[in-house]
């Protein structure tokens, strides 16, 4: 007997609902420096996700009592536009958005050298224009690139990617349908050069072996995303020249 849910999410050839293989990322496109008024910005298309991120700072903290004497404050705001989902999303910050703002801030913080900017603040605004599952990962990727564009001292870029379980199969980069109908979803943010995990969430159930496989797969996805982030930054600052030619 067919399991209808399984049939919808994966066919007998191992192809997923959107035609991808199990270890295949959605198409990713990153553009750097799209908001002129911001100190740093980036636009990402992660599958059907469309997200714009603007970074302001380091700048004066308002209200002043929030300032920290020894380091910079990082503020992060994740917001979904009312038109980003099928049915209108109330623009007021929801419980989910407040939570995602917090986890995004915590995943970006380890990559920043905040002690270089005492008594200042860095504001990161993440605006989701179109959502299709995995928007927090896409937001983290764009935010990291925007922070680098703003010229803030960073130990490493942050790359994020989710992995999950569809029945017995561990798959990379969960989309909206798989997130809702699948069995587990695990977003991971990772510092590729330092090899450190800065975000790990899990919604669903995994055995120990499945957990290890899922984490491994998510990290490999993060490494692929990192190459795209790197390319986007290089393109903005150095054009198509990847190697420096000395001036005569």
């Amino acid at each position: 007997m067919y399991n209808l849910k399984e049939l919808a999410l994966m066919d007998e050839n191992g192809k997923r609902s959107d035609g991808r293989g199990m270890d295949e990322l959605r198409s990713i496109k990153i553009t750097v420096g799209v908001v002129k008024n911001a100190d740093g910005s980036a636009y990402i298309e992660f599958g059907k996700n469309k997200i714009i991120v603007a970074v302001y700072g380091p700048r004066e903290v308002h209200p002043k009592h929030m300032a920290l004497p020894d380091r910079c404050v990082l503020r992060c705001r994740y917001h979904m536009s009312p038109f980003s989902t099928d049915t209108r999303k109330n623009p007021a910050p929801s419980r989910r958005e407040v939570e995602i703002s917090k986890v995004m801030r915590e995943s970006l913080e380890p990559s920043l050298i905040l002690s270089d900017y005492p008594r200042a603040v860095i504001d990161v605004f993440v605006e989701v224009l179109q959502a299709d599952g995995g928007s927090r990962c896409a937001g983290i990727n764009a935010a990291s690139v925007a922070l680098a564009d703003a010229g803030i001292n960073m130990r490493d870029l942050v790359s994020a990617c989710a992995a999950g379980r569809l029945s017995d199969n561990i798959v990379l980069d969960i989309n909206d349908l798989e997130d809702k109908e699948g069995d587990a979803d695990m977003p991971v943010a990772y510092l590729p050069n330092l090899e450190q995990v800065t975000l790990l969430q899990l919604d669903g159930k995994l055995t120990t072996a499945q957990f290890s496989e899922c984490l491994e797969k998510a990290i490999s996805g993060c490494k692929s995303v990192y190459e795209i982030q790197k390319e986007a930054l290089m393109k903005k600052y150095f054009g198509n020249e990847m190697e420096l030619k000395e001036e005569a």
Partner: protein
Amino acid sequence: MQEIKRRYVIPGDKIIEGNYKPLMNVVKSGNYLVSTRVGIAEAGKDGVKVIPLSGVYIPRVNDLVIGKIIDRSSLSWDVDINACFFAHLPAQDVFGRDFSPAKDDMGRQLSIGDLIIARIVSFDRTRDPMLTVQDKDLGKIPYGEFIKISPTRVPRLIGKRGSMIQTIEQATQTRVIIGQNGIVVVTGRDPDGLSLAAKAIKMVEEESHTTNLTQRVKSLLNVQDPVDPEQPESMNTSSTTESATPPQPTTESATPPQPTTESATESATPPQPTTESAAPNNSKSSSSSKEKHRNDNSEKSSNNDSNSDQKEKKQE
């Protein structure tokens, strides 16, 4: 020390392995030196550094900056210096030690919206930058065209020993005042020269990391000959050539109120910028400031006296 080739880096990129000294925008991670910014990595005898291509201005003591007066309290002005903190310019710095908030009208010297060129006298992690205008060429900037560039492009705009900025100044017959904070003010009589200088400055900003930039700037400015090495060098690395007029020190701001400098149209018909007689009532203001400073035994008065004396001599 083994030399490494200059190369493009982004945050997290490993620059070199080994026991090198991290200088600027570089951190140690294990046995590697890692870049913290997007920029160009290079190693010298002293260590490894990354020349950043983006970022806001972080104040440093002794930097010359151009700032805009944004607020005034009874004892000081607040100045926006395009950094993460507002700077303070104490009223005593302008009026002298005998400044009295009750007697002296601060609005007479500097009003909100005025541009000043100032030096940072103190700044550290615990307090906001403090400015001074008590030096030659510092003070209010009466007119000019205001251009904002990325602070990271300032060294490229100045060029090696001021070569780039000299090229622009000579080709366009303008005077360019550069603040380390990325604010540039261009003054000159010829509107075409002003717009050409602005165009060249923008070009340097946008293409600062590319090769043969000097040649491209020269071709934009229609400069054929190489820069004459006999030409006087910049007064300092972040300011101007000797032939240009220094801005009026604030102690002499009895000059007629000049329009604020942000409007490009206003800069088209400025008073004569290339000679010391830029301010029509210079002699009057000089003598009045001299009198004032004679009564003042403070150290700064001697600076201003010498300033005034120089101006008088030149006028003669």
